[in-house]
C-alpha cells in the first residue's frame, strides 16, 4: 500500500481512511487533516510546483520520524500539484493508532513537517494575469519547533 502520493487529481477522504483501516481491528483512532485553497481577494488559483526526486524521499523521512515517536498503525499523505482553485483540496494527512492522542499528535506533526520541509512551492495567480510566489510564514517555522 502506497502511503504517499503526489498527484494532480483530487482525493477522497473516506477512501483514504478506509484504506488505512481496512480489515484491521487494532485501530481505535484516525486523525486526519484536509488543507484547502482559501479564496483571498482576487486570487484566481494557486499553482503548486514540487521537486519530484526529493518530495517522496523527504516525506518518507517525516513518516519514519512520526513512527519513531508514536505507536502508529498507518499513515497516509496525499499532496496535490498543478493549478488549484479556491475551495479545492490541496493536502491530506491521516494517522491511525490505537489511541486518539497519538493519532492527533502524529497528524499535527506531519502537517508541520510538510509545511516547513517538503519541497513544494505555491504561486498565486491573481485576476488580470499577474501573481506572486507565496512567502514562507514564520508561524509555520514556530509551529514545527514544538516537536524538537
Amino acid at each position, binding site marked *: 500500500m502506497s502511503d504517499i502520493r503526489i498527484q494532480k487529481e483530487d482525493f477522497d477522504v473516506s477512501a483514504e481512511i478506509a484504506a488505512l483501516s481496512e480489515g484491521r481491528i487494532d485501530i481505535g483512532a484516525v486523525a486526519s487533516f484536509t488543507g484547502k485553497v482559501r479564496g483571498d481577494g482576487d486570487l484566481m488559483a494557486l499553482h503548486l510546483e514540487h*521537486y519530484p526526486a526529493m518530495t517522496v524521499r*523527504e516525506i518518507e523521512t517525516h513518516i519514519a520520524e512520526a513512527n519513531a515517536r508514536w505507536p502508529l498503525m498507518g499513515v497516509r499523505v496525499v499532496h496535490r500539484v498543478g493549478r488549484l482553485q479556491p475551495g479545492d483540496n490541496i493536502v491530506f494527512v491521516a494517522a491511525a493508532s490505537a489511541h486518539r492522542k497519538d493519532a492527533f499528535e502524529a497528524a499535527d506533526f506531519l502537517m508541520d513537517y*510538510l509545511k516547513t520541509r517538503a519541497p513544494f512551492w505555491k504561486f498565486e495567480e491573481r485576476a488580470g494575469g499577474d501573481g506572486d510566489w507565496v512567502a514562507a510564514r514564520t508561524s509555520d517555522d514556530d509551529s514545527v519547533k514544538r516537536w524538537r
Partner: protein
Amino acid sequence: MKLLYFAWVRQKIGIAGEEFALPQDVSDVSGLVEVLAARGANYAGAFRDLGALRCAVNQTHSGFDMKITDNDEVAFFPPVTGG
C-alpha cells in the same frame, strides 16, 4: 553535476535546471553559488540574497557549507510553502 532551480529561482534564472561542470577549485555549495552568480545578470539576481535561498544536495536539505563534487545534484529554491 546536475543543477535544479525551483519557484522564483527558476523564473529569475530562466531555466528549470542544467548540466554544469563543477570547477575543480570549488568544493562546497557557497563556492558554487559564487561561480553561478558571476555567469550573468539572471544568475546574479537569483543569488543576490542568500538569506532568502535554500538548497538541497542529492535531494536532502543542506547548508551552504555542504561539500559537493561534480557527481552531485544541487537544487536551489526559496523556503518551501506546501501543505
